[in-house]
């Protein structure tokens, strides 16, 4: 196969188009990162100043504990939902994924609603919330591998004399190792860059880096400390991802679907108990969230809801909802356009330079957390000709940057799965490159691109980190409303924060359900 064949019919176009995402990432990720680095390049501050150092150490510590516990809880959950077929399996599996779909701020609130008063803030609730949020990562990442692991490896080991535990230790675990390391790295990163849940649960005495960046930048106006923390965080996240991503791509296993079926009575009993426990654990916080929104003082009252929809009081749900939806629509559109171009160049570009640009566009946004994006925007876009602080579009652009890694990764993965031979076949049947793109790639990618767009919208709806640094008066999204209301006294006002959180959660779940239905219907 020659180089030209390898790049197929799109090599040249892909090489030219890579300029678009290249400029976007340079302007909205690299330049803000540079502006932050310029102020915070003295990261020794994060090592020498006790306050900053303690924050970083505590953040690493809680993220490590959270990631370890998430694996301990997540692996049995994955085993139950991805290796067994039972009535309601799909529902139980979907339940484990719900917290990941919800904004972390909302999950934090849900935990505040169900935990007893003396456990509402501190390390414990934060770690528990992290486990709850990230079990989904283990179920998705490890489950995908586990489900596709042919049963016959297990059977081969059994015929060679290995019992159930030995089989798990010597066959299953080594084959899952890469995916477990990958999941652990992702979970660590999510817990390390925790913001929404930490704002609600960690409490003022145990700040994490993201909340501290927010506090320094917005409340204290200390950009130097904020930048030093931001740079330190980027370095640590980059290092962890580089280490674990290598592990994730290590073993390759032939994929084959597996018939799931329950077996021995003891195992069936264990799975049943587990499924019930999972259901309870994942439904309870959501019930807590809803019930808290209708509680005022000691009694129940729909006052908060009435006020919120009547436009009276501290929250105007309708206008916040509109702001959330427009922002999400703009951010998702932008993100999918840029993300698809990155993927297109990544998979098809004919020149090494174009390929390099695409890879940079894919990798750089990964290490920049939401709050760091917000801080970077704040620092980069304050002087002319880049003084864009007052522009309405800055918020959706920041959301698009936050969503970009997820979007481009999803699209790249599905683009790679299209066999080059399909294109060759279409070409030999007389299709021009444009025709091939329309008839082969576009139709095969319609569903993954739809899913990635919904993912971007989801990220935008729940986006709180960048938003809280870029917030302006007016045009307040639901997430920003929750953040603002929480800080204010009064029973009804507090209940209204939960009203906004319930509306937000419902919106996210509705979005996911619609996309899920569309994909399942599309498969028929």
């Amino acid at each position, binding site marked *: 196969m020659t180089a030209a064949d390898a790049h197929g019919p799109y090599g040249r176009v892909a090489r030219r188009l890579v300029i678009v995402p290249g400029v976007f990432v340079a302007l909205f990720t690299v330049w803000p990162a540079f502006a932050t680095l310029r102020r915070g390049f003295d990261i020794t501050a994060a090592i020498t100043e006790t306050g900053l150092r303690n924050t970083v150490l505590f953040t690493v510590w809680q993220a490590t504990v959270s990631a370890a516990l998430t694996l301990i809880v997540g692996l049995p959950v994955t085993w139950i939902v991805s290796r067994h077929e039972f009535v309601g399996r799909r529902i139980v599996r979907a339940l484990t994924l719900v917290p990941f779909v919800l904004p972390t701020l909302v999950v934090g609130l849900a935990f505040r609603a169900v935990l007893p008063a003396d456990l509402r803030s501190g390390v414990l609730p934060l770690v528990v919330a992290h486990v709850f949020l990230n079990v989904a990562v283990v179920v998705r990442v490890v489950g995908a591998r586990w489900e596709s692991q*042919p049963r*016959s*490896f297990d*059977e*081969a*080991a*059994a*015929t*060679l*004399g*290995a*019992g159930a535990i*030995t*089989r798990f230790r*010597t*066959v299953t675990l*080594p*084959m899952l*190792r890469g995916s477990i390391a990958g999941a652990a790295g992702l979970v660590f990163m999510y817990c390390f860059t925790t913001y929404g849940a930490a704002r609600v649960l960690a409490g003022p005495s145990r700040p994490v880096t993201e909340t501290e960046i927010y506090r320094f930048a917005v409340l204290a106006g200390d950009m130097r400390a904020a930048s030093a923390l931001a740079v330190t965080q980027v370095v640590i996240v980059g290092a962890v991802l580089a280490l674990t991503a290598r592990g994730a791509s290590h*073993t*390759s*296993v*032939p994929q084959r679907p597996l018939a799931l079926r329950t077996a021995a009575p003891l195992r069936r009993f264990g799975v049943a108990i587990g499924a019930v426990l999972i259901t309870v654990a994942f439904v309870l916080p959501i019930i807590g969230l809803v019930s808290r929104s209708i509680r005022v003082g000691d009694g129940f009252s729909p006052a908060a809801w009435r006020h919120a929809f009547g436009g009276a009081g501290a929250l105007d749900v309708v206008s916040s909802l509109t702001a959330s939806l427009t922002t999400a629509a703009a951010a998702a559109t932008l993100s999918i356009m840029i993300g698809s171009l990155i993927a297109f160049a990544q998979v098809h570009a004919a020149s090494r330079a174009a390929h390099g640009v695409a890879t940079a566009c894919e990798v750089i946004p990964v290490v920049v957390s939401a709050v760091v994006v917000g801080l970077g925007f704040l620092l980069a876009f304050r002087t002319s000709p880049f003084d864009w602080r007052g522009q309405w579009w800055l918020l959706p652009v920041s959301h698009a940057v936050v969503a970009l890694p997820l979007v481009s990764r999803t699209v790249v993965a599905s683009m790679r799965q299209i066999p080059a031979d399909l294109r060759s076949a279409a070409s030999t049947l007389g299709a021009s490159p444009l025709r091939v793109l329309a008839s082969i790639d576009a139709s095969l990618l319609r569903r993954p691109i739809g899913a990635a767009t919904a993912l971007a919208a989801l990220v935008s709806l729940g986006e709180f980190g960048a938003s809280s640094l870029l917030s302006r008066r007016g045009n307040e999204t639901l997430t920003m409303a929750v953040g603002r209301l929480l800080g204010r006294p009064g029973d009804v006002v507090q209940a209204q924060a939960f009203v906004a959180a319930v509306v937000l959660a419902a919106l996210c779940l509705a979005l996911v359900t619609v996309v899920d239905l569309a994909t399942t219907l599309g498969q028929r």
Partner: protein
Amino acid sequence: MTTPGLEICGVTVSFNGSRVLTDVSLRVERGEIVAVLGPSGSGKSTLLRVIAGLVPASSGSVHVDGNDMSGIPTHRRGVGLVFQNNQLFPHLDVADNVAYGLRIARITAGQRRARVAALLALIGMSDHATRDVATLSGGEAARVALARSLATTPRILLLDEPLSGLDHDLRYSLAQELRRVIHAAGSTALLVTHDPLEAERIADRVVRLTELSSGTS
């Protein structure tokens, strides 16, 4: 009369109400290689899986070396199974695949090395001990799978279309090698295949699956 290496009596298997095997009986003497012929989908693989304990029989019995196998889990049966697609463990190299069962049987490292070396010599792959199994050709993978199953000297060796993935010429030369290796190991073996020529080249005796139902053989 001596105890047979394998005795199957009236085995019936049903999945969700449909019968896959009906009243199958078969006797294999110790040290004998028997091939069962049948078209694909006739339940040949299921027969092997019943013997290995991977699939429960609805009725009937399986005896290995005179011992009733009912209720005994796969890993305590002492039955070797060479899978259709070999199922070599992708995370282990050639030698470690062959040594897998020896490790589980807690054979000491020294004896293990010697046994693996002998087996690799037997299949003509002494120079490939540290190779990644993903790089093996179809014929090499089939031989490694055979060596892995022979390593623990199973009381009976089951082979499920061991050569099905190979091209014509290699298939029949490897068939003779399989026969040589199995006999050299002194193993009792039951092979299932859809290819009469392959069956004849490997086995001492060839029977059709349809002949095994109710009464015959």
